[in-house]
């Protein structure tokens, strides 16, 4: 990021306001998300999956990219939201919007409880505790097979039409509209958060968690707050998946899903909200295109990609693009 003298942009408030201004590329990007309706009407189900994955990645970005909390168990909240939404509709409450909000709220409450543990640890112990909590929840869901269906997955999820007007059809038109709207609204919240003083204090905590309290930003409180928000967002993503695919399997809680979303975020670029979205688009489209090959070999390429990104492309594709653009601008005055 270029250093800007504060006076030049009108003080701290002016700086923050300049950051929140919508850039043309951002507006173009969100308009482009409407293109699948016109260009790829056969791929709307995939587009809906992409939007859900992007929402999940953005939620991880808030804690990992901004607050610097490495989590190998973020799928716990995704799965929690998915099972909550699925179980609600299975037991008669098929209205999607309220189910979505309830699932998100429940994931947020559990995230708040977990955040008291999370805020106390850093480094290796933190990674292991998040991993352990994710596995713990998966085992619990597996054990409670009367409720969750265990390895067979949750059957019998039924959704009422959205607003009692738009049924979830086979082509995914409603599903994509619904997921995209959820992604966009949540993205607005995340964007506002990261550009606020709260977001700046999170970045400070990422860089030096011990020094931030001296500047008047209590590290642990901030970490607890952002972890709760991220958990609620991940729960919302899970609920969307359950509601649009009408099934929930144990896989929503698996380590694989936590690792996948981490890969997606790192690929796109952690610490930038669009990183998660871009990563989700690339990852999901590539997986769809290569779905002919055995999933096991798919992970071979993901592994290689991960190694390459860590070694050669620190901060992901978006940062790489930024650097390339800066070099291009320098060369042509």
């Amino acid at each position: 990021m270029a250093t800007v003298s504060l006076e030049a942009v009108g003080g701290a408030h002016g700086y923050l306001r300049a950051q929140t201004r919508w850039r043309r590329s951002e507006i173009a990007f969100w308009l482009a998300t409407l293109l699948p309706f016109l260009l790829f009407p056969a791929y709307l189900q995939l587009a809906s999956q992409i939007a859900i994955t992007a929402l999940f990645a953005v939620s991880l970005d808030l804690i990992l990219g901004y607050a610097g909390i490495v989590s190998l168990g973020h799928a716990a909240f995704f799965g929690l939201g998915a099972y909550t939404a699925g179980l609600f509709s299975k037991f008669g409450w098929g209205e999607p919007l309220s189910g979505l909000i309830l699932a998100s709220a429940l994931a947020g409450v559990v995230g708040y409880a977990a955040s008291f543990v999370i805020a106390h640890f850093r480094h290796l112990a933190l990674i292991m505790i998040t991993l352990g909590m994710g596995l713990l929840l998966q085992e619990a869901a597996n054990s409670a097979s009367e409720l969750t269906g265990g390895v067979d997955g949750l059957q019998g999820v039924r959704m009422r039409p959205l607003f009692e007007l738009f049924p979830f059809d086979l082509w995914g038109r409603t599903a994509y509209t619904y997921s995209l709207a959820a992604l966009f609204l949540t993205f607005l919240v995340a964007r506002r958060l990261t550009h606020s003083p709260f977001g700046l204090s999170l970045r400070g905590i990422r860089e030096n968690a011990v020094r931030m309290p001296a500047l008047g930003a209590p590290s642990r409180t901030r970490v607890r707050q952002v972890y709760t928000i991220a958990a609620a967002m991940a729960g919302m993503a899970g609920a969307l998946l359950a509601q649009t695919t009408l099934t929930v399997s144990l896989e929503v809680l698996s380590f694989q899903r936590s690792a996948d979303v981490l890969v997606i975020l790192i690929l796109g670029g952690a610490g930038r909200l669009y990183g998660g979205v871009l990563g989700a688009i690339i990852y999901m489209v590539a997986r769809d295109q290569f779905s002919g090959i055995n999933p096991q070999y798919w992970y071979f390429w993901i592994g290689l990609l991960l190694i390459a990104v860590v070694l050669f492309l620190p901060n992901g594709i978006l940062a790489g693009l930024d650097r390339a653009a800066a070099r291009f601008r320098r060369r042509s005055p």
Partner: protein
Amino acid sequence: MISSFVGVLFDGFAYGMLLFLLSVGLSVTLGMMNFVNLAHCSFAMLGGYVTVTLMDRLGWPFLATLPVAFLAAAGASAALERVLFRPLYRASDLDQCLLTIGVVFVSVAGAAYLYGTVQQPVQLPGYLRRAVTLGSFRFPVYRLFLIGAALAVTVVLVAALECTRFGARVRAAVDNQRMARGLGIDVDGVFAVTFALGSGLAGLGGALAIEMVGLDPSFAFAYLIYVIIVVSVGGLASIGGSFAAAALLGISDMAGKYYVPQLGAFLIYLVMVGLLMWRPAGLFGRR
């Protein structure tokens, strides 16, 4: 009742010794360089597949394949350390995690490509398949052999760390890396050798594990969790701690599976999270 209890205790201890072999190398290297190597179990898997290949395709006897499994894992890890891991010693935990997870993905897919996803069989020689009967208790020879091998490794390791010049360098590097460098110890070199030795032990553990827990491409992920539990509970760079933690984990896992099978692995994860919250540096850790 009492005989089943002794059986669980014995099987659990043998299982724990297996976990000890798999994890002791990671414990030492993690303590030395703070390098989070999630690919540790990939080297164990490599050792397992080397043994299977040598026995199946070339007809080697089981015991003769064990040193080769050790050497293959040590050699592969030394090469990877030099090429991939060394640039990342100063990098963040996250980068180290991601890179090594990438290695695990590649190794799992590679194993599936070469050997398929089926369980690999291993045909033990007759003298290892028998059982020793002692009163009303029956002890399979293979598990006795496993316990013996782990105890031998422990004795050699402790002796090497406490009584040799190389061991003194390792201890110095673990205690205070900067000071050790200041005294002219080649910490990177010591680390490379320790890393290779630790991965070699994991390879040996992987070869010995086939008979007890089977071998398929998911090994690298499935046992990673156990290894990490042992390391984080035992404390970094503490051989005694790893030994105690592995024995504890092996016995409690066996007991859990035997007495409360409906809980599955839940108990183990609960114990791990609880212990980590109580003592983030591990039961026997100093830092």
